[in-house]
Structure formats: structure tokens, C-alpha cells
């Protein structure tokens, strides 16, 4: 028994690796990213500590005390080796040595104090202007100073006289690398655009799905009643959208709807002005998107439903005919009930894939006009990987994606429940 189960594990390993790499790893990484503020600006590796004058306002918003802000904004004067070296170069080594002797490492709250100290020395600098210049050599401000280590930065902050309690906030503002944060989600739920995307997605998924299933059923049932050869040709034509590369397929649609394209051309003689039938208004865009995606899905539905219909025993259809059922009644009472499982299956499968799919929208309207066809997955893509401001917000985009993953997993669980997944794989779902 034991070695058999090991054999099983052995056989499963490639599948597990693939599931691990292609599903779990991306999901985990998305989850991780979504709790950071990673963007083009922060980079995805570590960063430095740097306070710029702009940061002061930001810190105020974070509740840093005025005292700290003043302290940070202040320039202090410390007698250090760097300053002494400059002093020696400009005003001679004697004065530098003397200053070192008397005030090495002393900190002066302002320039005046240091100037006074310089004045009090044996090798004093006479001109006040020169003293001022010399004192400036020792001026240090924490602003615009880059620290590569956190300890150095904090030491420097303490030296400015900042309030101890404010240090974490100051440090976090000063950090130029990425940070852990839950702000992505707060932002997500507070922006009205988010709800817009959610509603767009809902509309996109529902309408496309209804079109898919409805049109798929229509094609399957109508071809079922057609003569064999004709039906096959018909099915093949409708299957084209599925096997065409998306870019080519979309290109055909674009050509079809361009203001100098097919539609405009054939409508021109009817007095309808040439226009962009895809992007004219958001209604145009929506209709186009649903037709484009719907046709792709409908062909799958057609194939699935056709084969399901053909597996209905002929005698059952014959029976319904001699029982007096018209063709319409036959469809309604015999064929459709038998298609219950394929319909349910396609509904769930398509919901999941439509939720995550955006390639056709990207290639056609790209979310436009305005943001009227921006769906959730496309918003995630735009935020994280392509936008016009140039600052790609990986973390924020990942937050979008993570919510999609959560919805997808929840929906999958519901569907598995609905299908009674174990039954589904253990016995054929065409009743006979």
C-alpha cells in the first residue's frame, strides 16, 4: 500500500509544481505586493532615507509635532572634521586647529553662536563677513541629506532635537524605498472610481455571459435542426472567432467599425454619416465589447451545447414527437432541460474567465471613451503595468488584482458546491 501512495505522489509532482509556480506563487506575490506601496518611484528593492522640504508638509499631515518640524527645518552648526578641513583650506590651519582644540564636536544652535565662538579665539577672523562665511562651513541641515542606513538617519534626527515620539513617523516619510502598508485597500475603497470599475465589471460579465449562453444555445439548437453538411459549415464559421488570434480578430472588428471602415462605408449611401462605431459614445463601446467577447464565448457554447444535444438519445426526441410536441415544445421540454449541466458549467467557467479577461477590451477601447469601459482587471493592469503618468503603482495594482483573486476563489467554491464537483467528475452529466 505504502509504495503505491508514493508512486501517486511521484506522478502528481509535475502537476503540483505547475500549480505551485503558475497559480500559488503569483497569488502569494500579488497578496504580498498589495500590502506595499511599491511603485516606479520606490523601486522594488530597498531605499535610502532622505528628507526634502516638501516632506515637511506631508509630515504635518501625519501628525508630526510642530516642534519636530521646526527642529528638522533648522540648520545646526557642529564642529566636525569635515568642516575643520574646509576651514583649514580657506582660513589657515592655525585657526582650524584652535577651533578643534576648543570646540571639537560642539554643536551650536545657530550661526550666531558659532560666529561668537570664532570671534573669541586667539587666531580670530576679523571680518564679520568672513566669520559668517567660516561658520557656514559647519552648517548642516538634515534636509536634502541622504542617509543609507536607518541608524545614521535616526541619530541625525535626534541631533536636530526632534521630539522622540515623532521619530517613527519622520523615518517612514523619509524612507525612499517601498514599505508595508494597508493604504492601498483604504484608497481602493474610498475612491469613487473603484465602484465605477466594479459596476463596469458586473455589467461586462453579466451581459457578455447572457449573450454567450443565449447565442450559443441559439446556434446549437438551430444547427441541430439543419441538414448535417450545412450545419457543419455554419458551425465552422461561428467557430472562427475562437481560433483566430485575438489581435487579428480585434483588428477585423476595428476595420469593421472604423469611421472609414466597413459599417460606415455601407451605411453611407443610406445617408448615415461616417463615424467611429466603436468609440463614438460609451454605448457604442459597450455594444462592441459585448459583441466581441460574446462571439468568442458563443462559439464555445455552440460546440458544447451541440455535442450535448447530439448525445440525447434519438428515441427520446422521437418519443416527444409522437407525444405531440411541436418543435418549440421539444426544445423547451426535452432539449433545454437536458442541457442544464452544460449551461451551468459554461456559466461558471465563463464567469471566471470573463472576470479575469481584459485582452479584448485592452485591444479595442482600452477602457474608453473616458473610463466608461474600464473593467476591474483592466484597471489593475493599467495601475500596475501601464499608465500615462509613468508612475507604475505595483502595490496598488496588486491590491486590485488580489480582490479579483478573492472573488474568483469564492465563486469557484460556490460553483463546486453547486455542481457537487465529485459527482461531476465521477459520472457523465447527460442524463439518459
Amino acid at each position: 500500500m505504502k509504495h503505491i501512495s508514493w508512486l501517486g505522489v511521484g506522478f502528481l509532482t509535475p502537476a503540483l509544481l505547475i500549480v505551485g509556480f503558475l497559480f500559488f506563487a503569483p497569488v502569494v506575490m500579488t497578496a504580498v505586493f498589495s500590502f506595499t506601496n511599491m511603485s516606479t518611484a520606490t523601486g522594488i528593492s530597498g531605499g535610502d532615507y532622505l528628507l526634502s522640504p516638501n516632506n515637511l508638509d506631508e509630515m504635518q499631515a501625519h501628525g508630526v509635532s510642530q516642534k519636530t518640524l521646526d527642529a528638522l527645518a533648522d540648520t545646526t552648526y557642529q564642529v566636525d572634521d569635515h568642516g575643520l578641513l574646509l576651514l583649514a583650506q580657506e582660513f589657515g590651519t592655525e585657526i582650524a586647529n584652535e577651533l578643534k582644540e576648543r570646540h571639537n564636536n560642539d554643536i551650536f544652535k545657530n550661526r550666531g553662536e558659532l560666529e561668537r565662538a570664532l570671534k573669541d579665539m586667539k587666531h580670530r577672523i576679523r571680518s564679520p563677513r568672513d566669520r559668517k562665511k567660516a561658520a557656514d562651513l559647519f552648517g548642516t541641515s538634515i534636509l536634502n541629506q541622504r542617509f543609507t542606513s536607518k541608524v545614521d538617519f535616526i541619530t541625525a534626527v535626534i541631533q536636530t532635537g526632534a521630539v522622540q515620539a515623532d521619530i517613527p513617523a519622520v523615518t517612514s516619510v523619509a524612507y525612499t524605498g517601498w514599505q508595508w502598508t494597508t493604504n492601498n485597500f483604504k484608497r481602493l475603497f474610498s475612491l469613487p472610481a473603484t465602484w465605477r470599475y466594479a459596476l463596469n465589471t458586473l455589467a461586462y460579465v453579466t451581459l457578455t455571459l447572457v449573450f454567450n449562453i443565449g447565442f450559443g444555445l441559439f446556434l446549437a439548437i438551430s444547427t441541430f435542426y439543419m441538414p448535417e453538411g450545412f450545419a457543419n459549415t455554419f458551425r465552422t464559421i461561428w467557430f472562427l472567432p475562437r481560433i483566430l488570434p485575438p489581435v487579428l480578430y480585434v483588428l477585423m472588428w476595428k476595420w469593421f467599425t472604423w469611421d472609414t471602415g466597413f459599417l460606415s462605408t455601407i451605411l453611407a449611401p443610406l445617408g448615415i454619416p461616417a463615424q467611429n462605431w466603436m468609440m463614438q459614445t460609451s454605448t457604442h463601446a459597450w455594444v462592441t465589447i459585448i459583441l466581441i467577447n460574446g462571439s468568442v464565448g458563443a462559439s464555445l457554447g455552440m460546440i458544447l451545447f451541440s455535442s450535448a444535444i447530439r448525445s440525447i438519445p434519438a428515441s427520446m426526441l422521437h418519443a416527444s414527437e409522437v407525444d405531440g410536441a411541436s418543435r418549440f415544445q421539444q426544445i423547451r421540454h426535452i432539449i433545454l432541460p437536458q442541457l442544464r449541466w452544460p449551461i451551468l458549467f459554461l456559466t461558471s467557467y465563463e464567469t471566471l474567465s470573463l472576470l479575469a479577461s481584459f485582452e479584448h477590451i485592452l485591444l479595442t477601447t482600452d477602457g474608453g471613451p473616458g473610463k466608461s469601459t474600464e473593467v476591474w482587471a483592466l484597471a489593475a493592469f493599467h495601475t500596475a503595468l501601464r499608465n500615462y503618468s509613468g508612475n507604475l503603482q505595483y502595490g496598488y495594482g496588486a491590491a486590485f488584482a488580489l480582490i479579483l483573486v478573492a472573488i474568483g476563489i469564492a465563486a469557484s467554491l460556490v460553483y463546486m458546491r453547486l455542481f457537487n464537483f465529485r459527482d461531476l467528475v465521477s459520472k457523465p452529466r447527460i442524463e439518459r
Partner: protein
Amino acid sequence: MKIELRNFTKRFDGQAVVDNVSLTIESGEMIALLGPSGCGKSTSLFSICGIHRMDEGQLLFGDKDVTNLPSQKRNVGVVFQNYALYPHMSIFENIAFPLVVQKADRATIRRKVADIAELVQISDLLERKPANISGGQQQRTALARALIRRPDVLLLDEPLANLDAKLRLEMRSEIRRIQSETGITAILVTHDQVEAMSICDRIALMQKGKVVQLDKPREMYANPANMFVAEFLGNPPIRFMPAELHENQMIAGGAALPRPQHLKQSNLPDKINLGIRPEHFGPQFGNEISGHILAIETQGRENLYDVALSDGGVLCSIQPANDHLNPGDTIQWGIASQHLLAFDGQGERI
């Protein structure tokens, strides 16, 4: 309602599967379409109910020509070989279906289903799905569904083929009971001659797309039109042996027998085939024929003996059970010569 088939031909891919068949079934009669597998029974049935189109010929229900009517308009009830119940509907819904598509009102439907369910004795199963009832119950359901519209014609395509032996016997008489109670004209397709003989008024025996004989069961058994019919009816089957006719006697089975009364005409060929049924060969008919016992098959009440004759032919005999004889024993038995069936070289009855 009387059913009349005139010169009916049905072809598949240019090949005649049913060839110029004419058949009249009287009102209230139950007729069996009997024949070996592939002889065209189902095809005939499907043409009568309108599933197949007839390539040639005419079909009349009463005085009405229904040849070109679609099956929906023919008012026939059909019980299919595999019952063809609708798996997604309950038994009630299955039986009610013909009324539902007629848009009958619900009270009527409920009453009629209750009545018919009582007739076929499945009243307590109406809530179940077809998958959850037995084969016999499915068969009754199919019968109820076929009958609920009070069809002019009831067609049954091997309705008992899927049942076990005991249930088959039960359902056989059940079908006959229901058919006579409702007085409906019925066609029963079967390849089981016992079934056909036991419950039908007449049998139409088919061979390769043609009806070779149409007769009452008893009559067909006693007077088969040819060797095919003689062999098809009767179990254990009839045995044949060649015979030579002489002036006053007949050489058959290695013995010289007196020429039977009904074969006295002078215009008969010299060489004929004799058909001898098992019940017409045995010790009670004399001792002219000698042979030895090849095998004995006990059927409880009766024994079957296979007997090898001295000229190499084999006859079968059926006799009340006893254990006097063993395989290998030699016997001297006779033939009931008045029941001998004679056929010419083509197998046609003389």
C-alpha cells in the same frame, strides 16, 4: 381504428428495407410484427407513427390518409424498445407530457394521469424519476404515456425485450388486458414467437422486408406457408428431413413409410422436404423409424430427445418426463403422418 398499409416501401441509402408491404389491421385488433433481427419491423413501426417518411405507398387510419401527416398529428401512442422515458421528469410528468403539450388544464391532467396510472398499476410511483424505478415499472410508465391521449393506434416496439422471464410473462398478459380493456388497435413488434402467439390476434411474419405470412397464430403454426415460417414458429423448433415420394410409400429417415393421406396427389415432385414438429415424433406414433438418442434435455414437465436416424438426419421429440432412456440407447419410434408438413425444393409449402 382500422389501419391499412398499401404497398409500403421504405429505403435507406437506396436499399429497400421494407419492400412493398400491404397490411390491414382491423379495428380493435392486436397484431404482431414478428421476424428475425433486421427484417424491418422497427422501420415499419416508425413509418406508421410518422418518425420515418414512407418512400412509397399509403397509410390509412380508418378512412383518413395519414401518409404525409407529421407524427405530431397522427394520434398514435408508441412504446419504444428502450422506453425512451424523459429522465428529467417525474413519472407523473412523463405520463402527463402528451397532455401538457396539448395544453390541457391541470385538473384534467391530474385526473387522467391518476386513471391511467391505476390502469397500469403504478399509482404509488408518480413522484419518482425514471432512474429510480424498475424495468417493469418503466415499461408500464411508457405504456401509460402512450395511452394517455387515447390514441387511435398503439405501437409497441419490443416492449418486453428488456425484462426478465417472469416479468415478461406478467407484462405480456398485462398488455393484452389493457389493450382489450381500451379496445385500441395495436401493433406489437417482437422477435419472440411465443410472445406473438400468446397475446396477438394475428401475426404478420416478416422476412427481409417482406411479410411472408399473415394469419392467426394457431393457423400459422399448423399451416406455415414455407419452411421459414415453419421454422420460426414453435419451440423447440421443427426439424426437416428429405424424403422421396414413391407410388405408395415414402422413403424418409432411413425408413419406408406409407405415403400420408394428404400427400396422395400425383402432381407432387419426387423429392420433397418433410417438416416434423417434436410433438409429432415419438413411441405413441408407431415404430417404423429407428435411431439412437443423442441427447436428452429435461424441461421439468417434459423431456426433449434429440434422435439420430439411421440415414444421418436428426429429429426432435417431446414427451412427458420419464427416465427410462439414456443417451446412446436405440429406439424405434413413429411419426404422426397426418401432421407431416411437406415443402418443395424452394421451401414452399406443398
